[in-house]
């Protein structure tokens, strides 16, 4: 086609990688340390439980059966749907979804603000965003617990100002878990949005205003489509780890707010564990996430095709 040469504009062949072997090291690492263990998990989920942890190499669907069906205490009642685990999953999706939403609502304006500062300030603000990551997540989560517990500094301060007359019970509620997730993953929302917002040409906003757009129309029609890839990437980076998080629910949520991460975590611990069941729970989680990601990728491609 005549347009072929022009469509290559800005992606000069000269600087494009010469071959797929540039990807080889990355593929090797992903293959050995990610795909292989994932395959192992899937295989384990179809094996038989060994009583002191571990598996017996004997094919079995018991783990999935346990996940989806309730057959009574002795296992010989007619099967009924087991809601326990499904509920944990739904609750986890809700928590992860809310965490993503909060991160988006707070992270998008922050990312936009940072991206529109002068270059020096921009670099400094981005550094500040990453500062919490200099401290390990476990320690951060524990210190968050110290901060918000009933006798902690936050409640002491709120009572001192007279805003509250008795402490706010946050620890061991789903609100604390929500706070923990939001706090843990906020930078994963800010950074990708920042990366796409930084490349946004402010002259486009001016052109839009010049052509009779209100501020809101400019945001919706010009700015948002440009930074959309960043928003999608950030949402995935927050949603997926939130779904499998176990530090925040374990440390901040206590026994009442159980999430998928905690459920799986427990199955691989000590004699009380059940490896095939944990593996099955993980496999189900991965399948659901995979389906969501594939649907998202397809809608992205469709958007591009139409636009």
């Amino acid at each position: 086609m005549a347009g072929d040469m022009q469509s290559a504009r800005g992606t000069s062949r000269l600087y494009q990688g010469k071959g797929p072997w540039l990807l080889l090291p990355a593929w090797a690492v992903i293959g050995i340390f990610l795909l292989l263990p994932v395959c192992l998990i899937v295989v384990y989920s179809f094996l038989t439980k060994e009583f002191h942890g571990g598996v017996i190499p004997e094919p079995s669907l018991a783990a999935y059966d346990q996940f989806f069906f309730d057959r009574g205490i002795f296992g010989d009642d007619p099967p009924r749907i087991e809601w326990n685990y499904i509920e944990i999953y739904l609750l986890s999706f809700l928590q992860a979804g809310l965490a993503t939403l909060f991160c988006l609502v707070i992270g998008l304006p922050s990312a936009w603000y940072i991206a529109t500062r002068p270059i020096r300030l921009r670099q400094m603000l981005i550094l500040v965003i990453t500062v919490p990551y200099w401290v390990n997540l476990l320690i951060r989560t524990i210190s968050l617990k110290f901060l918000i517990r009933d006798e902690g500094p936050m409640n002491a301060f709120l009572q001192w100002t007279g805003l509250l007359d008795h402490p706010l019970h946050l620890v061991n509620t789903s609100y604390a878990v929500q706070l923990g997730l939001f706090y843990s993953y906020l930078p994963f929302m800010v950074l990708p949005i920042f990366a796409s917002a930084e490349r946004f040409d402010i002259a486009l906003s001016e052109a839009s205003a010049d052509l009779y757009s209100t501020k809101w129309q400019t945001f919706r029609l010009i700015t948002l489509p440009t930074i959309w890839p960043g928003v999608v990437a950030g949402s995935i980076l927050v949603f997926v780890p939130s779904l499998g998080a176990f530090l925040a629910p374990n440390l901040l949520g206590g026994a009442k707010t159980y999430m998928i991460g905690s459920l799986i975590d427990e199955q691989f611990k000590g004699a009380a564990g059940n490896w095939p069941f944990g593996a099955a729970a993980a496999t189900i989680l991965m399948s659901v996430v995979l389906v969501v990601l594939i649907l998202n990728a397809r809608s992205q491609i469709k958007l591009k095709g139409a636009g």
Partner: protein
Amino acid sequence: MNDQANAQIASSSTAAIQVLSAQKRFGQFTALDKVSLEIGAGEFFTLLGPSGCGKTTLLRLIAGFEDLTSGDILLYGATQAGLPPNRREINTVFQQYALFPLMSVVQNVEFGLLRKGIAKVEARRRALAALEMVHMGSFVDRSPVQLSGGQQQRVALARALAPEPKVLLLDEPLSALDLKLRQKVRLELTTLQRNTGITFIFVTHDQEEALTMSDRIAVMSHGRVQQVGTPEEIYEHPRNRFVADFIGETNLLAAEQLEGQGTQATVRVMGGRPFRVERSADLGVGASHVSIRPENLILTDAEEANISGTVSQHVYLGTDVQIAISAADGTEIMTRVQSGSASTLPAPGSTCHLKVREGRARLVDD
């Protein structure tokens, strides 16, 4: 009564844009200093000046991207102070075009029409007509990133013209184009302006562009307007040293004013024979320089000489030969003669005498 009188003033004045002692400061820096301009409806008006003189700043103030520090800007008599860009019936062709990269060419052009609340079908029809007008009718569905610089420039023009603004602002729209294309587009732009009747305010630092395209030019420097006039007025009757120097080539020489009345004066340069010069009636008292274009200095003999000096070099320019002469006090003077007369040129190092063409020198303000 009073209202009626006001209405009459507003309707009888045909100024599309009035800039009333507009001032713009960025921190301590004054980018525009008490600029006043009146731009007529349907005029092709050019802001001309060197880099950094405040042209873009003035354009951005008119468009509404910046707020005035003081002063006012009126569009057909109505103040635009405090109005955001989307509430001003003024559109801009940006220097780098600023086309929306995620939209097709036609979506870019109909964008303004849709925001103005024009129905989809009608907006599409008018967008296509605007693209047809700039000869881009066959690129409707392309993405702007797949267009050449010249094509992008046309789309930007169509996008700004489609909503039929009262005033169109163009910030150096030709600077990204190569010379050949620039000359072609110049002609197209002036034709387009005449056919649409829309007031154009055009920014450039290229004097040739300004002289060939404009109805009137405002020459700016250091945030001030130095002179406003038709291309001919600006070229032939520069008011001050800056304008004389900036527009075309000229010799600016310190002169002794012997007598001066009305629009005529007699001056002497470097002790030579006195000669008559033009001056504007409102010239400042400090005026002490004459501007003489190279083509208005003629080689002559010693008796008739207004200025004398030593030839330092010849530069062959095609149809003309430029002769550089250094006067006794070291001042460099340029003159031009036609190349045909090359055999009679004074050799470098020889003494040479110059006469000022009658009535073609001007006394200018400092």
